[in-house]
């Protein structure tokens, strides 16, 4: 039970991380860095980035 919880939690987070990395052009090219700081004043943009599926 505890083992299953631990495996599901860690592997679930890994999967989410991998999924988010797919949508990040700066993974391969630093010049394509998304505006991490430029969106600071735009709560809607921040909310979009927080979602699991940023491309959706």
């Amino acid at each position: 039970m505890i083992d299953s919880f631990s495996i599901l939690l860690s592997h679930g987070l890994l999967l989410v991380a991998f999924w988010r990395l797919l949508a990040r052009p700066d993974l391969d090219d630093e010049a394509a860095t998304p505006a991490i700081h430029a969106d600071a004043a735009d709560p809607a943009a921040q909310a979009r980035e927080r979602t699991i599926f940023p491309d959706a």
Partner: protein
Amino acid sequence: MRDLFFLGFLAGLFLLALKRPFLFVLVYSYIDIVSPQRLTYILLNSIPISAIAFLCAFGGWLVADDKRDSRFSWRQVLMVMLLGWCAYTTVTADFPIDAAHKWSWVWKSLIFAIFLPLTLRTRLRIEALILTMILCASAIIVTGGVKTVLSGGGYGELNLMVDNNSGLYEGSTISTVAIAIIPLLFWLAKYGTIFRPDWKVRFYALALAGACLLIPIGTQTRTGLLCIILLGTLVIWRSQKRFAIGGAIALLAVITIPFLPATFTQRMGTIKNYQGDQSASTRVQVWKWTWDYVKTHPAGGGFDAYRSNRFTYYMTEMQGKGDDARMVRSKITEAGRAYHSAYFEVLGEQGYPGFLMWALIHILSLLTTHRIYRRYRGLGHDPDKAWISPLAAALQQGHLVYLLGAAFIGVAYQPFIFMLVALQIGLATYLARISQQDGSDKMFAPAAPASAHKGRVMA
């Protein structure tokens, strides 16, 4: 059922990685740390997933990755030399069959560590590797932490999902790794971009750090306690609010002690009385034996050379209680005892040359990372550089904690420590490239003028 879960999970990761080949590097790291083959019964054991992941990672880098700014550091050169030296000592080993068995995984660990920094070309890749390492370790740490809270654990009793007491699933090793990743965990919670810092991320980081601190208690390993003390000292030393943080740590310790299991406090009490403890006494004897062995075998005895050791010593311990208490001196004879220390492991197996290479890899890493920490310190106002100095500090603290734990466990060739070294190399080469592009910093630049080196640069 578990077999199907891991098979499906790995298939999902491989599919995602087809779109972004760097993800294969993370998949290999996952397999190296979690060893899903050990958690399953049949399916994954029959597929060479580790080899497939490495071939995909290397192939992806070779075919699809931008290699214009790939750099090769002196530490990677040292790792190549160490790999060659290990191959030589394996061929000439005292115990060829055992040596060949250990070589079968050590070379993979070294090759991956040599390759890994070449792929860490962007800040996001460095962060992604740190996140993967922490989440992978958390698969073992969360279960260990929860079980410690529920049952209190016990030395050699805490079930970390598998009976196989090797790799990160060994009590002292996971204790060391759990404490070593805490600084990186807090760095991610503050500067992460994959999981942006918000209350959920901070809460998870705090909970996981708590689980990390519970691992040495649950496994009741003395090594883990020493690692906690070292980490606390390093944090206080680096902190600008030394008294506030020192006070908070002291308060936390005072509050925690009454809740610790009695068996834990008893076992920790044996740290200062090693003569009455067979496990600790045997270590000291093995270390003495190794020191003498390498004097007559300066080139080392190859992997598992400890198998030829045999020694006799006397142990003094208190038996009975109250008025019946008496000191008893007993004669102990041991043979074929493992090194129980990464330093003596390398010294005995690889002799002076191998030890020198291995030690230089770590010393250069610590020095370079410290240089990065100092160079980028005080840039908290610059959003593009604020993350660098704290990351260097976290990597250095984690590395030092690991090196302390390694003094008591034979983890010299653990993939985890080589990944930590590779991360430091990756950070240094990344910054060297950025600095070169900016033309603002000559910290890592070679003596030749910038226009003269369009190819690879040593960092």
